[in-house]
């Protein structure tokens, strides 16, 4: 018998040819003992047993004699993260948020909060407090950011240097290197002219874009000068991207450079340069556009009440084209109104007050417009107000939130309103949307709510909750408002939770209500309340010291 005790004994004996002996055994086993005799054994009925005996000895011996291999080159250490670690409850919360991946549940959401949707807030909160990410959660965090591009900036800030270290080892996380300045390498200090110049000349495109943005942040003029050094040698697509980075910190000093870019070979570069110039009210381009636009729009007092008359341009000349006016309208639009729109859009809004005899923007917007030009003209002013971030004009164009046409198909569409709201301060924006909802309900409020800052200011939150309550009493189903509900879960101030408690009960169903709606509403409100509680807990955990 070749028992285990024998295996022990043999393992300690030494044989230099044990590797060969094993090879021979495998060969015999593959072919079969009918064809080949095991080494050191005579053929016969017990040859297979002898082979198995020998193989057993060799197997145990091979396993027992395994030697460690020489180590491969040791990876470089990840850079230290000097930020303080998360408090334990916050760390547990993050782990919980990260296990809630989209697609793992599905179906009706019931009363439980949608955890994945809270991750962006959690990350923003953690970054605000400047915590370091716990290393063992980095893989889950990177996986989450991989699936959701909107998470990436906050997630990568929070993840810190070790995430970049990991991303270099795992191709799944390459995005982290792409979306991080310099692919994770440190950028030269913006004031270090020599290093900046070298990276600018030798760097990859993405590195250069990031570098330019960093320099622009530090010193707008230095960035413009840096760009000018290589401008003529850049490819058209790159010129477009670089030009776009001048958008931040745009100032009158940029005008000569932009003016020069108006004669660029590429049409897209020319258009961008024109757009940027038109955002500088003092620029020569803005003045040229203003003189063109004001010659088209005038006040007619002959009809008694003052009326705006519009005489759209008859041609798009070379000068206009050079200033960024696109000559060919999209299909379905008349070319004259198309040109007019572009002229007004690029005209500094400040000039209209003088043109209309010292009227304020409100008064100008209130003037009647002859011959159905109101739509075109107001839309162009909207675009101008958004581009020039002009709060006074935005306010005027938005009108009163409660005005009857604010919700209807007025001159200014919902998406234009949403953009106009962007020019107002947070508080004013919230107030306007609250007024809108109080008058018009929620059916068209989603887009407007989307531009309000989170958490919602108190009047806005109250308006949304009241409107939801009214919608419930009207007997419709809550999923008609699922978009607003989702926003409310994320944006309502957690302090509102206690006011909502009364809404979570299932009410008696009125006769005309949709069947079962009451139960679904109470479920939706429960989810809203539990999400708010969860958000408050999240916030408190992050503030713990």
């Amino acid at each position, binding site marked *: *018998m070749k*028992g*285990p*005790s024998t*295996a022990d004994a043999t*393992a300690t004996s030494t044989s230099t040819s044990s590797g060969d002996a094993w090879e021979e055994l*495998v060969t015999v*086993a*593959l072919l*079969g*003992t*009918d064809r080949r005799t095991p080494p050191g054994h005579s053929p016969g009925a017990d040859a*297979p*047993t002898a082979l*198995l005996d020998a*193989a*057993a000895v060799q*197997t*145990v011996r*091979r*396993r027992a*004699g*395994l*030697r*460690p*291999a*020489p*180590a*491969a*080159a*040791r*990876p*470089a*250490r*990840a850079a230290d993260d000097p930020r303080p670690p998360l408090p334990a409850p916050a760390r*547990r919360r993050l782990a919980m948020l990260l*296990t*809630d991946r989209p697609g*793992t*549940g599905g179906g009706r959401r019931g*009363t*439980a*909060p949608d955890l994945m949707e809270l991750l962006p807030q959690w990350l923003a909160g953690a970054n605000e407090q400047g915590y370091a990410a716990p*290393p*063992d*959660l980095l*893989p889950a965090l990177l996986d989450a950011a991989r699936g959701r591009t909107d998470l990436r900036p906050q997630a990568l800030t929070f993840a810190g240097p*070790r995430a970049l*270290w*990991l991303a270099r*080892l*795992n191709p799944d996380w390459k995005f982290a290197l792409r979306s991080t300045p310099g692919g994770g390498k440190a950028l030269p200090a913006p004031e270090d002219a020599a290093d900046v110049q070298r990276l600018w000349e030798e760097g990859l495109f993405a590195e250069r874009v990031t570098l330019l943005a960093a320099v622009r942040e530090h010193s707008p003029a230095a960035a413009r000068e840096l760009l000018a050094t290589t401008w003529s040698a850049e490819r058209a697509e790159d010129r477009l991207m670089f030009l776009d980075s001048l958008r931040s910190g745009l100032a009158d000093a940029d005008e000569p450079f932009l003016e020069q870019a108006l004669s660029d070979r590429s049409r897209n570069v020319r258009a961008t340069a024109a757009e940027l110039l038109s955002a500088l009210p003092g620029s020569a381009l803005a003045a040229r556009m203003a003189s063109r636009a004001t010659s088209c729009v005038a006040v007619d007092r002959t009809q008694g009440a003052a009326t705006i008359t519009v005489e759209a341009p008859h041609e798009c000349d070379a000068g206009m084209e050079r200033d960024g006016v696109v000559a060919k309208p999209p299909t379905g639009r008349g070319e004259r109104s198309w040109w007019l729109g572009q002229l007004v859009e690029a005209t500094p809004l400040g000039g209209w007050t003088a043109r209309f005899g010292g009227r304020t923007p409100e008064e100008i917007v209130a003037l009647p417009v002859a011959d159905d030009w109101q739509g075109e003209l107001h839309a162009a002013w909207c675009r101008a107000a958004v581009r020039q971030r002009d709060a006074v004009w935005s306010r005027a164009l938005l009108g009163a939130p409660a005005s009857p046409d604010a919700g209807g198909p007025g001159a200014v569409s919902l998406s234009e309103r949403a953009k106009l709201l962007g020019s107002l301060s947070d508080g004013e924006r919230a107030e306007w949307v609250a007024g809108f909802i109080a008058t018009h309900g929620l059916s068209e409020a989603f887009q407007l709510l989307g531009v309000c800052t989170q958490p919602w200011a108190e009047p806005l939150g109250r308006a949304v909750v009241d409107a939801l309550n009214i919608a419930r009493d009207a007997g419709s189903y809550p999923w008609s408002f699922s978009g607003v509900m989702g926003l409310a879960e994320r944006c309502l101030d957690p302090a509102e939770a206690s006011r909502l408690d009364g809404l*979570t009960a299932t009410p008696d169903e009125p006769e005309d209500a949709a069947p079962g709606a009451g*139960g679904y509403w109470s*479920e939706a409100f*429960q989810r809203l*309340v*539990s999400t708010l*509680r*969860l958000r408050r807990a999240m916030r408190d955990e992050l503030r713990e010291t």
Partner: protein
Amino acid sequence: MTQQGVRWTADQVLALAPDAPSRKAGSKLGVAGPWSEAGSSGEGMVWGLCKGSGSKPYQTVVDVADAAGPAYKCSCPSRKFPCKHALGLLLLWAGADGSVPDAQTLPDWAEPWAEGRRKRAQTKRETDASGGAAADPEAVRRRAERRAERVTAGASELEQRLADLLRGGLASAEQAGYGMWEETAARMVDAQAPGLAARVRELGAIPASGPGWPVRLLEECALLHLLDRGWLRRDLLPAELAATVRSRIGLPSSADGRPTRDRWLVLAQYDTADSRLTTRRTWLHGTESGHTALLLSYGAAGRAPALSLPVGLALDAELSAYAGDGQLRADLGEQFTAPAPSPVRPKGAGVAEAAARYGDALGRDPWLESWPVTLSRVVPTPDEASGGWQLADADGDLERPDPAGAASERLAVPITPKAASGPGLWRLAAVSGGAPVTVFGECGHRGFTPLTAWPEGPGEAVALC
């Protein structure tokens, strides 16, 4: 022994979940929102009303004090066990934020169930005290004999089949496919030798397992042959080795070793599941004795094993070892304290030492796949030559410095391909960040399976499995 008054950790609760969706659903319910009238009693009862989609809230009550694992009751229709409400309630209770206050009296709806449990526990204690109905020793012996005869017949038949296979050559096994092995495995089940049946079933998968399969098939055939022979000649083996053979064959054994009391640190806990059974392995480390022990607990498919000991906790308890030389399996006996977080880390060894320990252990149990080892100061390192990963000593082997005085060559053990392709590898890499870490895992002939890691500096244990 109850764990009165000590609230669990969230990890401990989540390990009770039967599957990932339950864990997620339970996590979502672990907030105060849907709960009302929740409370917990000093006897280890936790209860609460959970608002669901219906008008009547679900009534959930859990008994966490039972040493055999928690018991649950919930008025929801879910077939999951425990249901998400029970998990959510326990999470809320574990959170200890005041949503589940300590209370003296149970609500009326929970009282009958708690009362029933108290009565049953009382009856059980009385039967235990009276020694229960002792089995007829003669009948037990006869049954064991009959089973041994069956196993012997099975082992002889298996020997015959192995001999036939080797006579015709392993090359023919590639064509034969699963069928032949499945049939043989079924014969071993009939022979009441589940250990043999499981090994035979695994043989069937080897021919399709990629390059090098003949080597692996011969190894496994040879070890199976060794086990057969061990059984057939068990009378000639030393008692310890014979016990090992019996447990490898799959005969029932019991933890009849002397209970050893220690402060046991939970090193790792992981589940493996097949179609019928979920097996949970829990590795414990005696912080005073330095011993390592393995607890096994089982759950029917779809149910989590009742024992839940999250990594990083330590408990003062008695363990009774199973018979067999080098046998690490033990049963959890009396627990003197509830599991609580512990800063203790196991003492680690270098890579060379880890391989040597597995070799030593094979001398006592040649069928061992791997041996539990803690490696200290190792760096998870991508190995470009093999495309895999390894755990490499951070420093050269200090015991064998080369004559020039510099530390000798650094050594490394490969991480098993299975472990290297899982999410645990990236957690390991993240915890390390290129710095040396302490890693507990199973070191075997296929390589090292990392189960738990501790960072270089201070920090909690990170479960990798």
